[in-house]
């Protein structure tokens, strides 16, 4: 059986977005986003423009998974942070439990500032995600409990 689905309610989503918005401001970053370790985007904040956040989320998760695999080969549990610095744009990724906090920044900021600010919010984000993941499941309010075969078939018409 697949894992239990993660359900993110509106209140939780806006709380996460508020934390990301503050981090973005404090770190002078372009975009900040939160991604599940499996590559699912959870929340994004910032100048998205034409940025393909879905692909970026998937590739960041792949990147963390690959470097995590390397870490284990040399006897480390994982590498908690990853940084990629480009000529103009850079990416900093922090592993927070089962989530990845990704900060995209340019010359207006610096790696040191992004690292510091990311670290400052990681505990808060970890606690929020724990609450989301461990929330009691109430199947009665699930929109999918009453899903019919016709509903599913209609997707493939």
């Amino acid at each position, binding site marked *: *059986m*697949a*894992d*239990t*689905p*993660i*359900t*993110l*309610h*509106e209140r939780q*989503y*806006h709380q996460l977005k508020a934390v990301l918005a503050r981090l973005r401001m404090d770190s002078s970053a372009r975009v900040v986003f939160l991604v*599940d*370790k*499996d*590559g*699912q*985007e*959870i929340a994004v904040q910032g100048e998205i423009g034409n940025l*393909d956040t*879905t*692909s970026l989320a*998937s*590739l960041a998760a*792949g990147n963390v*998974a*690959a470097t*995590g*695999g390397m870490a284990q080969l040399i006897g480390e549990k994982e590498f908690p942070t990853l940084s990629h610095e480009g000529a103009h744009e850079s990416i900093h990724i922090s592993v927070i439990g089962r989530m990845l906090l990704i900060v995209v920044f340019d010359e207006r900021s610096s790696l040191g500032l992004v690292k510091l600010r990311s670290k400052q919010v990681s505990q808060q984000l970890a606690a929020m995600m724990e609450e989301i993941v461990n929330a009691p*499941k109430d*199947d009665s309010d*699930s*929109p*999918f*409990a*009453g*899903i019919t075969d016709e*509903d*599913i*078939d*209609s*997707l*493939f018409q």
Partner: protein
Amino acid sequence: MTFINYASREINCKIVYYGPGLCGKTTNLQHIFEATAPQARGKLISLATETDRTLFFDFMPLELGTVRGFKTRFHLYTVPGQVFYDASRKLILKGVDGVVFVADSQEERMDANIESLYNLEENLKAQGYDLMKLPYVLQLNKRDLPNIIPAADLAAELKRKEEPVVEAVASSGAGVFDTLKAVAKQVLTELRKG
């Protein structure tokens, strides 16, 4: 892992195409990419070698439509089929909601199919999943080639449970969407169970 976002009213699910090297996993994704309206899908990301062999994974997000007011988005991944990329395959199975096993119908690839299927079961187990309980489809690909094993024999050899079996020619698109539909349907049915 299925991710349900009430704020953006989206469901996101992960489907992985598995199978031996050169069986047509990437070709399945390429056909879906080419046959889908641009607004329904994102970019097809291929992390491949210079000779177009999948190095890490291919990835494509696909939006199928709306169920009960929720957009259903499927994240389609392929694994590298070559035996020595096993570490990468394990990583890509993390958080999987449904698996498609793409079998190569050619006689000379039978051993490779069996080895890859065994590898799938082992790698799922390592991630805490059980193939017997996971949404799963068996695709018999390359049905247009001359030296193929009869579909019934191939299915008898490779079937693990009562999974749907789809005959396909991924290079022309035959059976590709039937396969996707069969696995997506099972994933959504799982959601109904909660």
